[in-house]
């Protein structure tokens, strides 16, 4: 009923090891130090139990007050236990903080290197969850769960050694009746695992149904469907609850088995010691109260650490969920794709002005970590046999939506793993212009400094001076959630942003896709005029005059190649190119015929 998906992937531990070595998180060292401190603390406690039972022996059997030395021993041991416990707490807290910091820094590096190509694939909410919760889940698991896991093995061994030393019979008995380490690791591992996973899944499902309907509130109101959905929600949660309880009832048993052994061990050891002291049982060496009490105090340590492990088992389930999302991201940090030779300082002038000379150009998936270094070459998402761009070239990139236009642009700008990219930085102009909530000035400058004159001039160039004149505070007017900008104006603003930068390559990803035809024409003219001195790669499926361009690339899914230069009528925004799961490879074809026909014209155009 509740299925668990076990994907074929690296185990969590293995991944953690890789992460540790790849990003120098220092997980191993801090794990070891925490385990050592914790074990020393518990060892000191066991010695403290020795002094405690010594004093008890004096009190009850010898009827004398405690010896000075015993009291001193007890206080020293308990003091050490206490101090070491404090040290362990602090270590754990510090280590978590520093690991989280390091992971966050790596994450921002990933964002910087992959930029929009990565971010556009998921919602903001997804990224926030990844950032806030998944990083933390991994850290908790690596620095809390794994510490406890090690302690749960070491401490029982320690306790068993002491018990053996005090009374081999009890030790032997415990060893036989409680095949401690292996069996209980399995019980805790499997039992608690199943318990927590199922519980986790059930709560998730309940929650997701609830949020699903909450997100639909306006629709439900419009359709008067609220009451009906309330009833459904009630039925569904009742149903889910009964099913979950049926599963969980069995899973709880495994947890109780541990409790059973732990409690029974204490009870039986107490009865055994009592009867031995009374002389009712005579097995093994005779026993004193001191020995008996020491053993009784030590026995709970056999299992208590394991039970603590069971209590934090959910950390493992969460870390596994986190791994799935984080692993591909973090394996991307070192740029695995080897860039082939390009843009080397060449002697002849033609090569000098060449910005890109790519033969057998391949673009790869963002998420797949094994690019070239893993030995097996992953299949390319997009392929071009030869692409050449010189300074001042104007390229029209056409193709159906979803064919891979954005993919190609992303690869050229270096946001996506590919065999070639521009050496210089580029300026992007996307379908949806970005307007940040700051002032007009902040929107244009983006942490750079430009003089007011430059800004005003740029706005004049994009024909926004009348708009600027109407703003109440001029350049310092704050853009709100609903900026006073139409789609066309917003796009002009992003053009002004591009004009301010001196990057000479512009990548235009359907800047006019969402505009009505009249505005499309006006804006396209403007872009053409302003981009005269720049190298342009212009993806569009709206009609553009072909004499504006000197190169025509067309992208097609699969092998068939189209010679049509532009398509209209298909207005779909290609936002899901990267995540398209079909195996079809996009092919870029340089369409030569049009270049030949219109070559003269475009040469002329370039002179301006």
């Amino acid at each position, binding site marked *: 009923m509740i299925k668990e998906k076990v994907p074929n992937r690296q185990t969590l531990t293995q991944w953690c090891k890789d992460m540790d070595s790849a990003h120098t998180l220092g997980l191993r060292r801090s794990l070891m130090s925490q385990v050592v401190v914790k074990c020393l603390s518990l060892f000191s406690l066991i010695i403290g139990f020795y002094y405690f039972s010594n004093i008890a022996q004096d009190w009850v059997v010898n009827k004398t007050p405690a010896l000075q030395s015993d009291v001193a021993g007890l206080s020293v041991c308990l003091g050490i236990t206490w101090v070491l416990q404090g040290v362990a707490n602090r270590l754990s807290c510090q280590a978590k903080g520093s690991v989280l910091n390091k992971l966050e820094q790596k994450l921002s590096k990933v964002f910087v290197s992959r930029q929009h190509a990565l971010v556009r694939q998921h919602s903001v909410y997804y990224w926030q969850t990844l950032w806030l919760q998944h990083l*933390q889940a991994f850290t908790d698991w690596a620095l809390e769960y794994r510490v406890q896991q090690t302690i749960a093995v070491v401490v029982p061994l320690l306790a068993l050694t002491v018990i053996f030393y005090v009374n081999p019979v009890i030790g032997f008995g415990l060893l036989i009746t409680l095949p401690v380490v292996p069996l209980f690791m399995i019980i805790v591992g499997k039992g608690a695992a199943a318990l927590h996973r199922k519980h986790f899944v059930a709560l998730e499902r309940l929650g997701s149904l609830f949020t699903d309907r909450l997100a639909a509130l306006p629709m439900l109101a419009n359709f008067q469907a609220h009451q009906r959905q309330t009833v459904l929600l009630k039925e569904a949660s009742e149903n889910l609850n009964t099913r979950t309880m049926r599963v969980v009832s069995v899973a709880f048993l495994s947890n109780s088995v541990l409790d059973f052994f732990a409690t029974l061990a204490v009870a039986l050891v107490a009865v055994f010691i009592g009867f031995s002291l009374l002389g009712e049982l005579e097995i093994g060496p005779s026993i004193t109260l001191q020995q008996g009490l020491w053993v009784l105090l030590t026995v709970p340590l056999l299992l208590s650490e394991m039970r603590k492990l069971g209590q934090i088992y959910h950390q493992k389930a969460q870390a596994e969920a986190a791994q799935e999302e984080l692993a591909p991201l973090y394996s991307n940090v070192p740029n695995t794709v080897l860039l082939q030779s390009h843009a080397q300082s060449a002697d002849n002038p033609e090569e000098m002005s060449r910005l890109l000379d790519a033969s057998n150009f391949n673009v790869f998936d963002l998420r797949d970590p094994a690019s070239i270094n893993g030995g097996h070459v992953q299949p390319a998402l997009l392929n071009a046999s030869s692409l050449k761009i010189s300074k001042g070239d104007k390229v029209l990139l056409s193709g159906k939506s979803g064919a891979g236009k954005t993919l190609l642009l992303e690869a050229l700008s270096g946001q996506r793993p590919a065999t070639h990219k521009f050496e210089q930085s580029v300026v992007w102009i996307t379908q949806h212009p970005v307007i940040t909530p700051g002032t007009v000035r902040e929107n244009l400058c983006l942490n750079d400094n430009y003089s007011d004159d430059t800004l005003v001039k740029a706005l004049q160039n994009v024909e926004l001076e009348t708009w600027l004149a109407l703003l109440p505070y001029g350049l310092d007017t704050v853009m709100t959630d609903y900026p006073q900008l139409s789609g066309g104006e917003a796009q002009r603003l992003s053009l002004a942003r591009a004009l301010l930068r001196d990057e000479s390559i512009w990548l235009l990803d359907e800047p006019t896709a969402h505009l009505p035809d009249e505005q499309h024409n006006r804006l396209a003219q403007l872009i053409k005029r302003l981009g005269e001195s720049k190298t342009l790669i212009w993806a569009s499926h709206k009609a553009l005059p072909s004499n504006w361009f000197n190169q025509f690339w067309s992208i097609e899914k699969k092998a068939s190649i189209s010679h049509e230069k532009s398509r209209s009528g298909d207005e779909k925004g290609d936002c899901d190119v990267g995540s398209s799961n079909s195996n079809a490879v996009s092919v870029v074809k340089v369409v030569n015929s049009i270049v030949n026909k219109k070559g003269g014209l475009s040469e002329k155009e370039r002179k301006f």
Partner: protein
Amino acid sequence: MSNDKPAYLTILLALLHGIAGVSILVISSWFIAISAIAPLGFNYVIPAVVIRVLALLRIASGYASMWVGHNDLLARIAKERLLVFRQLENNQIADKAYTTEALAQHTEELAGKWIAWVAPLSSVIFIFSGLCVTAMYFALPGTFFIVALFVTWLAAVVVQGLGALTIANEANKANKQFRQQSADFFNRSAIWHLDKSMVQSDAAASNPKSNKIPSANQVWRYQLAQKAKAQSAAWWFQGIAFLFVTLVMSGVLPVTSAFVFAPVAIIVPMVLLAAPDWASTGFLSVSKFAQYKQSVGVLKKLNATPIKQYRDREIKHSLSLIQYSAKGRHASMVNASLPAKGTVCISGASGCGKSSLLQSIIGLLPATGQREIDGVSMPEGMVTNWRYVEQEPIVLSGSVSLNLDPAGNNISQHDMSELLTQLGLKEILPLTNWVGKAGRPLSGGEQKRLALARAILAKPPVLAVDEPFEGLDSYTQQKVSEVLNSLSATTLILVASHTTPDALNVKTHLQLSEANTKTLLHTKCATS
């Protein structure tokens, strides 16, 4: 927000579990102590049996408390959520993904009250006071220390509780701030490459403060601080318990008890020594308590805006909009008269307010200006039988038929399948197919058509459709146009779109201009 019945059984079982645990410890230590001096005629059978019974009791109550507790928890979560959901009937909440996810989290927190902190705290208090009373009654040596430890524990819990509340408050603020900053940050992703400070931070990562990349550091710091607070409270408590053990055993305080060196004297030191184990759970519960308080606060402050609903008369001749515009948006003012039947195409650049105009006409958004039916002005609010199809439609996680008939109006299966076929959605049939979050993922185009089908099946007199053709290929656009054309004979259809397929019969064009106030209205002869 809900005054429901306390979970007595959960508390009782937790109590039993705790008491059995401490009793085993006390009785076993006493038992071996008394066995060591073995007075004549000592009946050793009874304590031995009691110990075993207690062990069984502890195991049984442990299992039962887990079972009952979780059963209760699940039932309570369901109840809390239904309550919240019912309260939100015909309301809108600020449409942010994390708000709804957070609501799921908060209701869980609310329902977990008993199992998370009431039961553990009350069981520790009960055991402590029971021990104090017993110790005083029998005048055991070291009674003073056990009472002192109880007082220490109470003080520690109160101090930690106050601190935890402040931290939880701060953490909530930090979380909100991070959400805001990171949302801005990710929404800007398309222009990161222009931001010099970001690109340079790649080269010089040593100076992370200089750039504008937000950091979750603050959020984590508060979360760690909350945990550290519980740990340190437990740690100080452990220290004091150990100190008291040493003091009792060293005999610093002269004891005037009949039991100075009797076997029962061992009980108090044993309890003190074990106190960090059984009393420390209380400190973890205090953090849970702070989270609970936060959740209560959030749910109280949940700001939902109600949608007024009313039923309006049939449109005979026309629906007029006078100086009409959605409130609070920089949308154009509209003056138009719309026919009672037929397709009206509203066009204009993106961002000029097509969607908000549609929503305000239906009444899902507040508006300024007047709506009039046949010259009679309409009150504010949503008209119950008018329908709106969102630009990014909502697909419920459920079967196709549930999605088509969310209100349970018994729409015939035949009508559903036929309409889906007409819209080119044959591939999502049969109607029992599960779609949405946990089912078959639908593409944007499929979602649009499913939502359109849902609205058409409700047979509304006025249907507003936001960008129905976006993301559809030309063949499917034609199919959708045909469906809308046949519907336009009986219905007023408002279509907001920046493209109009040739196949769509448009009666009236409504062009929203870029400039703020001008609105052009071309009326085409309805011949096409």
